[in-house]
């Protein structure tokens, strides 16, 4: 920032405006959720917790919240060990086949979500998994696996496999040496991967729209249906809480990542 040429000033202004465009819509939901009126008015009227009370007092919203939290927690519990095992296999195998396996495991990121959703709906309809908790969890495990695998593969890249070799040459089994030597050193990447799988399950909308129903509807499905009908400020309150949860989790993931160097 030595010279203040017109070009440089224009560049700084342009970048600031783009950054504002990025962050403003995410922040705007906060004042909306604390507004006392149904319609967002400018200048903002008085503050109230009305929409948060509406959310907490509504049995359907609460049930949907329980479903979302349960699904996200179960997704992490299942996707993390499956993803860590797969990432370990990918990093330690020189088989050509493993590269194909790795690419297949990334498929959920590549296939457009609407196709995945319709396909799963079709298969679930045949086997009776539509509108069930297990169906919802399974689909989210599939969608969360790439996040765990990507993060752990990256973690294993900076880990020296010779350490595990030493442990094994001293008589440890492969499994024990993994848990005693390898896992403690890649735990930050495992945590990051599972946090992203949790956020992915919490935010997942499209697949849930097709395969969930009855008492097992996640929060996002109820929000989507409500949004199609009218603008209900209760959704601003829920959105604020969801965004706060995401920010908090990303913050934990990034500080952990830094600590492990």
């Amino acid at each position, binding site marked *: 920032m030595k010279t203040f040429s017109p070009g440089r000033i224009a560049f700084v202004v342009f970048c600031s405006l783009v950054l504002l465009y*990025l962050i403003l819509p995410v922040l705007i939901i906060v004042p909306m959720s604390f507004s006392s009126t149904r319609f967002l008015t400018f200048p903002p009227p008085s503050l109230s917790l009305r929409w948060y009370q509406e959310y907490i007092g509504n049995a359907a919203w609460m049930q949907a919240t329980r479903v979302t939290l349960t699904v996200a927690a179960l997704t992490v519990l299942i996707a993390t060990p499956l993803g860590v095992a*797969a990432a370990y296999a990918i990093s330690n195998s020189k088989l050509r086949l493993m590269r194909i396996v790795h690419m297949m495991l990334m498929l959920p990121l590549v296939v457009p979500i609407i196709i995945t959703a319709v*396909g799963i709906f079709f298969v679930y309809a045949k086997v009776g998994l539509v509108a069930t908790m297990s169906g919802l969890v399974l689909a989210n495990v599939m969608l969360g696996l790439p996040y765990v695998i990507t993060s752990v593969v990256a973690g294993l890249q900076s880990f020296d496999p010779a350490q595990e070799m030493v442990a094994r040459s001293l008589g440890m089994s492969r499994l024990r040496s993994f848990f005693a030597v390898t896992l403690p050193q890649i735990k930050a990447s495992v945590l990051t991967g599972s946090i992203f799988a949790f956020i992915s399950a919490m935010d997942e909308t499209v697949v849930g729209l097709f395969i969930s129903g009855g008492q097992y509807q996640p929060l996002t499905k109820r929000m989507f249906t409500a949004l199609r009908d009218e603008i209900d400020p209760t959704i601003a309150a829920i959105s604020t809480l969801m965004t706060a949860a995401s920010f908090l989790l990303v913050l934990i993931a990034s500080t952990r990542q830094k600590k492990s160097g």
Partner: protein
Amino acid sequence: MLALASPALLVILLLIVLPVGWLAWQSIYHDGFTLENYRRIFSEDIYWRSFSLTFEISLLVTLLALLLGYPIAYAASAVPKGWSVLILALVILPFWTSVLVRAYAWLALLQRTGVINQFLQYFGVIEEPLALVHNTFGTVVATVHILLPFMVLPLYATMQKIPNDLMQAGASLGGSPSHTFWRIFLPLSLPGVLAGMTLVFVLCLGFYITPELLGGGRTVMVSMLVSRNVELYNQWGAASAVGVLLLISVFAIFLIVGRFIPLDRILGQK
């Protein structure tokens, strides 16, 4: 080693390979082999219009994202560390906010009684509220917002690796800042441009939530064609055929781009 990967692989096979394969199968099989579903897509106007609209919107969104994203990525790679952390945080935080929440925020900002219209009316800029949403405009504004991080992050990853020495060398040999940028920095950042554009374009082709909520029923993108054929008309064959064509488009793009830059480099950003 393969055994260790097999549980994860099984989940992928059962929940994505099998369902998508099944969709492909029923797009060509209905009491015998038939290409009727595909014939319809190519002959009926509504399908054709939706496909061309989707490609147009995706191209527009990709170019806008590049226009907005390149300067941001450049700034993040050129400023001192503290500032670049701040810029990246402002890019990553929206990235990890639910797409649904962001679509809702845009709805609240752009609608007739929304923040932007109220703001402009309050200051007397406009008399009547502008139609900013429930059209293609609203869809594009929100989609660019949602996909912008997918442009900035691969761009930043590439720019960060461009050695500063090169620019200094260019300058010491008498190149003006703009000359060294156009002749050295820009060409070296092109792999990032290609990765970012591919990601944004492909993701936009399959976008569903934003056009559904902000398009107002008029901006019918391909993904909506799939869902409507299933939900409203119960036309599984038609939905499957549209889905297969969408999937083929996506894979074709990855395949073509994959000849220039490794695919895991594109996907690693996600």
